[in-house]
């Protein structure tokens, strides 16, 4: 009897999804759907928060006040994105503190791109242009995700992202038009971030066993390879336009398909970085853990102050 109930609930659930009816927090949903979302949204949240670290590295060394104000605003946006997403995870019944601790213990993952170091100012350009560009490509379809709170968070995020990419592209353009040294710096940043940016879309479809289920649930609307191709098609002409060279000897335009063909991604590197052996994995998680520990007295003090105010009001 109980089994039958679940089958019927699952059928109704899938029917809603098929009819593009959004799922809201208190609606019945299969456990696996809930678990998939908790994993995906919390990873996304962690990526926003860890993503502040490589850029935060350059705030105090921005070349002028305008660039500094812009970078500061961008990094602040990323903090906000993290917050929208942690809130969305909470609507699924996950505990916020545990979610964050999962990042700190290494149980939860985040986007592997943030495990690469930011060596020069040009990296701020490459990150805005390529990393935020790839993030936008991933996030725009998520605005139509079947889970309401995630979709709504993505609408806010996407509105804010477009300036992130533009400010990065502006940095790259300026450097590419500058002295030979500045242009070389921009090219070097592109060389280092191009392939990790392509890896942001995740493994090839053939090696991505959860894609089919996620697409059936309309959490995902496009496969990893589709999005990656779209990113390459859009980004290559932008690089050409500012006189930079995409570091891929196999890259070529295919007039028949209307797409660029590109070289094989180094998946060994990808899996190494995902499993904790990237250049900065340890630094990133250490920095987050330290931030939590160093801030704990502030959180406690705020609680104590709130209690005191409440008591004063009551008397």
């Amino acid at each position: 009897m109980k089994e039958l109930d679940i089958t019927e609930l699952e059928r109704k659930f899938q029917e809603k999804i098929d009819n593009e009816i959004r799922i809201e927090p208190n609606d019945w949903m299969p456990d696996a759907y809930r678990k998939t979302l908790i994993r995906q949204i919390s990873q996304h949240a962690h990526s926003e928060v860890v993503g502040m670290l490589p850029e935060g590295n350059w705030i105090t060394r921005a070349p002028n006040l305008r660039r500094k104000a812009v970078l500061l605003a961008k990094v602040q946006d990323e903090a906000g994105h993290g917050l929208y997403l942690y809130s969305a995870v909470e609507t699924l019944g996950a505990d916020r503190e545990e979610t964050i601790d999962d990042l700190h213990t290494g149980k939860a993952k985040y986007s592997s791109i943030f495990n690469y170091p930011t060596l020069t100012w040009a990296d701020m350009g490459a990150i805005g242009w390529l990393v935020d560009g790839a993030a936008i490509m991933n996030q725009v379809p998520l605005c139509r995700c079947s889970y309401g709170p995630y979709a709504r968070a993505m609408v806010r995020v996407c509105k804010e992202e477009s300036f992130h990419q533009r400010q990065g592209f502006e940095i790259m353009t300026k450097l590419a038009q500058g002295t030979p040294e500045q242009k070389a710096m921009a090219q070097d940043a592109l060389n280092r971030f191009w392939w990790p940016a392509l890896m942001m879309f995740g493994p090839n479809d053939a090696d991505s066993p959860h894609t089919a289920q996620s697409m059936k649930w309309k959490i995902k609307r496009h496969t990893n390879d589709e999005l990656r191709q779209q990113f390459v098609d859009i980004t290559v002409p932008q690089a050409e336009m500012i006189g930079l060279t995409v570091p891929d000897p196999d890259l070529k335009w295919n007039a028949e398909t209307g797409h660029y063909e590109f070289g094989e991604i180094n998946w060994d590197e990808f899996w190494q970085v995902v499993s904790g052996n990237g250049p900065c994995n340890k630094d990133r998680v250490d920095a987050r853990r330290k931030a939590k520990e160093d801030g704990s007295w502030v959180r406690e003090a705020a609680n104590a102050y709130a209690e005191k105010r409440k008591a004063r009001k009551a008397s």
Partner: protein
Amino acid sequence: MTKKEWPLWEVFIRSKQGLNHKHVGSLRAADEVMAIENARDVYTRRSEGVSIWVVESKNIFASDPSDADALFEPANSKVYRHPTFYDVPDGIEHM
């Protein structure tokens, strides 16, 4: 070390004078003063609002989604609540 998390707050923003407050999301804060400060930083960085309400999430009571049919279905049969239900003779104006 205390493990007490800051409570969860729902945030409502009036985007401009004359419009009602609309739910935009939630956040955690120690009290209502901090909730408003945080809501300002998180939800109004691009002139999205002129006024903020915060309500502690535990004070919100919601209808049960499984009651939706019983609650909202009866309205569907009462088409006479809409002006389009009525025939107005040709030539009648201002109605």
